[in-house]
């Protein structure tokens, strides 16, 4: 099976964050492979190991994103395409999706996979947008993948349970990070990644109009979440404090 996995470089949500004048200040050095994308890469590698084929990663991003691409290659992806963007374009999900759709327009593949959302924006739109633009059968929030008779069998988490969906190929799927533990590249993988092909594609060569790249959503600024104050802490005899809190939930918090 030929897999294309779309990956994104995102700021590490665990790094310290600061907001100054409505702007988000982050440590530029702490940029990582989006965790959901890492799961999508892992799952593609597992299916390739089982059934053969090829895994290629595609990343839209600044020059720095090549580090993220190397990580996916070091995990075991066979090759990569880096769609080079300067990094300050203010793309939204729609812009990313239109770039990807254009790129994939004339490509051949069985499965196009993506993380179900990016950890920075938590939007979760790009996957189903690309699928719609390419008229591909798709499903989202996969928690397990299987290949069978040229079809992709997806276990996805729905509202009332897990749904088993059969998709003909070519198809698109977005992956949850619940499905696997992405492998950590070993030294051999890291060395090998340096020799793997990484093709660079200039955004301008994709023939997209200004309009198609323009985001329809704009971030006006960031603000702190209203802090939840720590309330009362009860320490002491289990019996006593348990009864006391039960009473307070009734008389003070009014939630019983």
């Amino acid at each position, binding site marked *: 099976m030929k897999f294309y996995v779309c990956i994104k470089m995102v700021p590490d949500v665990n790094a310290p964050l600061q907001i100054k004048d409505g702007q988000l200040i982050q440590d530029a050095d702490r940029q990582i492979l989006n965790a959901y994308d890492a799961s999508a890469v892992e799952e593609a590698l597992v299916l390739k190991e089982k059934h053969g084929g090829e895994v290629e990663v595609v990343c839209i991003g600044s020059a720095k994103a090549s580090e993220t691409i190397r990580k996916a290659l070091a995990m075991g992806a066979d090759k990569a395409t880096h769609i080079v963007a300067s990094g300050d374009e203010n793309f939204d999900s729609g812009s990313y999706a239109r770039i990807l759709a254009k790129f994939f327009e004339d490509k051949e593949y069985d499965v196009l996979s993506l993380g179900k959302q990016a950890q920075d924006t938590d939007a979760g739109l790009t996957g189903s947008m690309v699928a719609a633009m390419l008229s*591909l059968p798709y499903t989202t929030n996969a928690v397990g993948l299987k290949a069978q008779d040229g079809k992709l069998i997806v276990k996805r988490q729905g509202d*009332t349970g897990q749904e088993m969906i059969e998709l003909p190929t070519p198809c698109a799927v977005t992956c949850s990070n619940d499905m696997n533990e992405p492998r950590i590249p070993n030294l051999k993988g890291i060395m090998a990644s340096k020799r793997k092909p990484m093709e660079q594609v200039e955004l301008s060569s994709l023939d997209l109009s200004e309009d198609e790249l323009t985001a329809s959503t704009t971030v006006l600024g960031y603000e702190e979440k209203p802090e939840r104050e720590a309330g009362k802490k009860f320490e002491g005899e289990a*019996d006593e404090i*348990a009864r006391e809190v039960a009473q307070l939930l009734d008389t003070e918090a009014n*939630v019983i």
Partner: protein
Amino acid sequence: MSTILTHIAIADGKIKRSSLEVLSHCKQLADQGGHSVEAVVVDSNASSFVEGIQKYGASKVYVVEDPIFKNHMNTPLLKALVKVMESANPSVFAFASTESTKDILGALAANQNAAVLPDVSSFELMDGGVKAKRPVMAAKIISNTQAKGDTVLVSVRSGSYDLAENETSAEVVNVDFCMEDSELQAILKEIISASGDTIDLNEAESIVAAGRGVKDEEGQKLISELAQVLNAGIGASRALTEAGIYDPSLQIGQTGKVVSPQLYIAVGISGAIQHVAGMANSKVIVAINKDPDAPIFEISDYGIVGDLYKVLPPFIEELKKIKN
């Protein structure tokens, strides 16, 4: 005057409360700005929900009824929504942010060339679009975002708005729907674990959530007893859904459900940011944890420092007394 369309989600044969919260908010926005608010319900049994929807102020209810909607599948749902959007021509189309919504929102936006703001915690209308607050970076901060366009799609986190009844005699529009098998792009083979008779976490007034501190069957029994006394839904941290102790659909957090009940009791949960991202909007948070420095205490209204096996039995006993 423009139209605000709201999607009414059905799960397990009931209207999802979260979509009525969205309708309640949209009704208010419509009244303020002189717009009309309409609703769409897509289900195998859609017409049976019209009365429930009319209580919340929609002036028109689009009903798309077909056996194909018995279970969620994205192709038919998209087709139905596109059809309704073409007749309603909404400037805003608002959804509750459920898993089914997440499955189709991007595709619908692409298909309709609409701007889209997913998973917002609040939104308002502005000239030529919508302004919203969105929790981002694992819900650690809020981004103020605006979307401009003739149509803006919005999905709203559950618990963001209160229900407000507003009885109307909405006009009912039955929408013809038919789908050939050949149009079905994907096939639903099976539903593996339906939550069945458990209480839907998006709807629950109270939630009892179990974490790794709940180590054995005795612990799980205490969790069930506590949930029963409170008529609460049961949730879990990822530690326990990954271990297979609770169903994955019960996971609360960044990768699980985002909930906002009146009362959330976290039992043996440390309070990792990925868990907190899913429950920090609960009205009242109670934590039971034996580690006095557990991060969960920083966001709890009532923190009980103690061993859950010792705390829960008297706690349950006292709640029973109060309930009677």
